[in-house]
């Protein structure tokens, strides 16, 4: 950031857009610079510098999610090559905790946004549906840490999960009905009653607070 004057203006702008406080933005900016090696943008390769991320089984999907145009609100599909700080904050804002001051409508909106993020992660080809293949892919990655579970079983699990989803979303199906895949509305139905807004968040530090566990 340039001179302090324009910097604080930028910070305020970002505050307004993403909802983070200025302290949090400072902290995240420091982290961004560390990850990008003082460059203004981050590429996929920069994520390799995070050692702990290697152990994560769904690493590739998560990294992909950072560059997904749908999450960055830049387009209906495709991947960006690099993201700047504002994009970084946009992605992070999906994980902000729900503000207690929000009213019911805003909470619902927040909830939808978070679920949409999750949906985009599953729906890798951006066609608006999670097909059986994509679901199988997810389960494979999740269980990839365990080499003893056979591929057969993994596929059965994915099949079973898909069936379950079908039964929740569509209920009884006619004999010649084909269940194409989980649309976003179906996805919302599956998640009905489960508090995603309270589960899907990460604590972003203010400089003073020390958070151990919530």
């Amino acid at each position, binding site marked *: 950031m340039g001179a302090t004057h324009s910097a604080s203006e930028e910070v305020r702008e970002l505050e307004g857009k993403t909802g983070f406080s200025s302290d949090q933005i400072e902290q995240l900016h420091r982290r961004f610079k560390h990850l990008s090696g003082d460059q203004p943008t981050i590429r996929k390769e920069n994520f390799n510098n995070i050692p702990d991320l290697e152990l994560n089984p769904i690493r590739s999907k998560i990294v992909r999610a950072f560059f997904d145009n749908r999450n960055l609100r830049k387009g209906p599909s495709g991947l960006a090559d690099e993201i700047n700080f504002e994009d970084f904050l946009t992605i992070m804002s999906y994980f902000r905790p729900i503000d207690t001051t929000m009213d019911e409508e805003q909470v619902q909106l927040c909830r939808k946004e978070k679920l949409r993020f999750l949906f985009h992660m599953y729906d890798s080809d951006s066609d608006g549906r999670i097909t059986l293949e994509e679901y199988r892919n997810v389960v494979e990655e999740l*269980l990839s840490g365990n080499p003893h579970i056979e591929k057969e079983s993994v596929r059965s699990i994915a099949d079973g999960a898909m069936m379950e989803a079908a039964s929740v979303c569509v209920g009884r199906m006619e004999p010649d009905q084909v269940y194409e895949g989980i649309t976003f509305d179906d996805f919302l139905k599956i998640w009905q009653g489960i508090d995603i807004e309270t589960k899907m968040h990460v604590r972003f530090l203010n400089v003073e607070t020390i958070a151990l566990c919530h």
Partner: protein
Amino acid sequence: MLRAALPLLGLPLAGAGATEEPTQEPGSPGEPPPGLALFRWQWHEVEAPYLVALWILVASLAKIVFHLSRKVTSLVPESCLLILLGLVLGGIVLAVAKKAEYQLEPGTFFLFLLPPIVLDSGYFMPSRLFFDNLGAILTYAVVGTLWNAFTTGAALWGLQQAGLVAPRVQAGLLDFLLFGSLISAVDPVAVLAVFEEVHVNETLFIIVFGESLLNDAVTVVLYKVCNSFVEMGSANVQATDYLKGVASLFVVSLGGAAVGLVFAFLLALTTRFTKRVRIIEPLLVFLLAYAAYLTAEMASLSAILAVTMCGLGCKKYVEANISHKSRTAVKYTMKTLASCAETIIFMLLGISAVDSSKWAWDSGLVLGTLFFILFFRALGVVLQTWVLNQFRLVPLDKIDQVVMSYGGLRGAVAFALVILLDRTKIPAKDYFVATTIVVVFFTVIVQGLTIKPLVKWLKVKRSEHHKPTLNQELHEHTFDHILAAVEDVVGHHGYHYWRDRWEQFDKKYLSQLLMRRSAYRIRDQIWDVYYRLNIRDAISFVDQGGHVLSSTGLTLPSMPSRNSVAETSVTNLLRESGSGACLDLQVIDTVRSGRDREDAVMHHLLCGGLYKPRYRPRILPALAQHPEAPYCSYSQATHHVFLS
């Protein structure tokens, strides 16, 4: 009855002498019997165990009778009914025998009645939820109990100074502090009994219940410290004694937890090797958990904490190691024992209240105590919640706080502790006993009765009774990984990071050491849920009248060929209309194979003889390579597979 329990503790019964001469006819001492007696009444030989069995029988019959009336049980919690029954029974015994025969003896309570309940709750505690809320639980348990104890004790002393408590209650500040310490602890038995019927949301339940378990350490320390101070005399207490008191808090709690974890480790390790001796598996679980309790008691550490930690720590490995049948045996035995113990406790509470020789009434003390415990509990909860909400990501709102303050029930632990007081050192003991009885009755009866309407009126979030679905499990795991990853990216070592680290450590070292090799290889939570759903589906399928072992000849001509089964799994073939999860009989055999040849044989038999329904939902158009089967009559309509 509890004198009858003395033989169980190895002490001789007063009437034991009679057993030495069984052939004595009553009324003719010293003379040989006239002839061969056809029939002799040997009451004294069986008195002790017979009475124990009789009490348990009465308790169980009472439970049956209560549940005959739906209306009554929906309004009144069981614990209330049991206490009232106890009162009635006690009155009868008093009227008949002219003296109170049966009491809730502290020895029996702490050694026999409390451990099953605590073991049951520790073993079946949802550990994820527990650790998620550990901060809140610890705060309420430690800070909250200390606050309650000191404020109640001090307030009562103040009441005495103000003259509202009759002077015949001879108690000083220390005595009141001692009383405050034992009356202020939230009781796990009572909380369980009442909250079980109310079904509030899990977070609320785990916080109140976790608090009731973990505050045992604080109660034990406070009680012992105050007791010793009273014995030493308040003048002799020095500054170092206070420091020792604080230090003993850490020793008792951490020591108790450590004992529990050691036994959990032992238990998990032992069950790893019980493959050939499956029959002793349930026994091992109970024995080692009970040993943990007794060891902690012996060392004056917190026994409740020990058993809780033992249950929490060992569950994952034990469940993986022991056989399916043992798992069921353990679960049901634990539940039965716990339920039985709970019933007896409440009944005995009722009975003990009737013995008026043990208590003395003072209205000022009683009313004051009642008011103060409610008031200070509410105040304490509000203050602590305000502090906690600065740190919690899911703040506890006002309604939660109301339920938490109202749900701070006192129970049998307080009663047992007050009976243990030494009357010579604490002259006001009888007054304390009466007050404790009133408090316990009030909380269990009045608060127990009113909490359900209160919860309904306040529209507290109830527990959503979700059946475990595969999707949920999958998503939860995805979450965990995403959140851990985001924390890594942000560079902040928060809760998810540490949980992830722990899981890695567990996977690499602990599970390998403690789990049987076959279990270790395929252990994965997603897999477990899938497996369990399959088994349940299979069972319900057969229950619904599905003929799994139908004759092999009934393959319909245009059914897809067998090879496709391997690809799409039997699931698809058996599923009717996509309801429920999965019925994949292959699954059941794939992984556990090699263990039982019979399983493999059964599997092939089932596969061969399975009815293939006329309908297979098409999830992947690509998979429908086979020609459409002309859909024959809907005879298999009855073979619905529902998630039961």
